[in-house]
């Protein structure tokens, strides 16, 4: 009976964690999808996690940008890099996701 109670307590405490992990996993999946397809980031950037080897912009594994830095540059662009946010190429949800994906993938 006591073991059962402990199990219930662990389950209750781990539930939000599970939700968070699932949410993060979904955000990472969307981020990867945006990286590979809609934004085609890999055509210009190296990122080991995505196996991309573009050589126009900086190597993201070396740059190791913060999530905020990625958001800003994806939103406003830089040089040949389009302003994905300002030009309406990506939604804010997609920008959040790809920024989270790039940050998480390069700052392990």
């Amino acid at each position, binding site marked *: 009976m006591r073991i059962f109670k402990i199990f219930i307590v662990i389950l209750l405490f781990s539930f939000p964690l599970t939700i968070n992990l699932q949410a993060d996993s979904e955000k990472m999946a969307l981020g990867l999808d945006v990286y590979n397809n809609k934004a*085609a980031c890999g055509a210009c950037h190296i990122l080991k996690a995505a196996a991309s*080897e573009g*050589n126009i912009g900086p*190597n993201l594994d070396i740059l190791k940008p913060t999530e905020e830095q990625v958001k*800003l540059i994806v939103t406003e662009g*830089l040089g*040949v890099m389009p302003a994905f946010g300002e030009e309406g190429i990506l939604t804010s949800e997609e920008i959040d996701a790809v920024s989270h994906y790039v940050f998480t993938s390069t700052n392990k």
Partner: protein
Amino acid sequence: MKKGIIKKIDNSKRNFLTGSVTLAGVAAATSVLPISIANANHKDSSPKGLPDFISWKDRNALIVHSDKGIETHRSAIGESLITPNRNIYIRNNMPTMSDTQIGDRNNWKVSIKGVKNPKTFSLAQLKKLGHTTMATILQCSGNGRGFFAHEVRGSQWKTGAAACVVWTGVPMKVVVDACGGVDSDAVFMTSAGVDHEPTGLDPKKAKVERSVPKKVYKDAMLAWEMNGVPLPNAHGGPLRMVTPGYFGINNVKHLGQVAFTKTESTVKYMKSSYRISPIGKKGSQYPSCWEMPVKSWITRPTDETGTVKAGNVQIVGVAMGGMKKVRSVKVSIDGGQSWKKAKFVGPDLGKYAWRQFVLEANLAPGSYNLASKASGGGKTQPELRMENRRGYAHNGWKDHSVNIKVV
């Protein structure tokens, strides 16, 4: 795996980048110059090494922001006027062209347009046409961006996106004269690189084409040698436009065309990039990064060189006048409360080069803020930076000061 990922990219969704070119072109281009970590010997224990295309540079002299943005340490800018090639910063908008892409260097072609008799010259022909040597300062428009308080996109350069370089090449005026002179209705000299071509990207977005006022051609040159060696590919070899007194971006690398035009180029790198606009604003109505302002900074001692022994200390730095000769430089050891005139040392290589300065100070143990303030062309460095959106053209002396500890 890599090809799989690249192939997954939806071609129809990426026309914002490539215009009409194919993705295969990009994939092919990106495979030409693979970047890999050559070494990892940095003093600050950073694992960031130098990319292959500049593996010949001195890693210990450089701060690697990214494989495309590499800065010279404040203390490694060179104390003999000229910055050694192995210490010079890297800021390239397009990937450096490889030997294979460049081919026979003497057969490199540059077209001259907007002149009475438009011509195309090979590098070998240019070498027969004329010859000159000149020292100029190469400085990225964003040098000093790292001092801005607001969040600015781009490499966070402090002082090291700058170098003093001796160029050898042909005066632009000689080239123009060989073409019968500039068209009478021209207003700008517009230089274009060809380093975007192997990438297959849309030239409107990727071509580095810069317009400067027409008058610049009278002092400009087409350079094929940099500090005594053939112009390295990483610095725009085999041929580069040199626009003395103008920010680095106007010194177009891998030069393919110089045209005298009625209007400014409409490519992105001219129309919207490199515009000095207020924070929160942007647009082609704002001034372009053209003429460099008067500026100086201390290169020794610095916080990079460790504690300083009490007694006589040589405070050394570099000072530039921008478009005019630098006339004087003052140094402060108390954060700008009092100033003493420093002494210029070494040869004067002309108004477009920097001068080195030194002030001997007797320093007791304690903490000091060292600052320098240059004057030239009737202008003196301001105390504060000119706030602007992209962190360009910073020449305020306060941010460029250094804190040292004397023991």
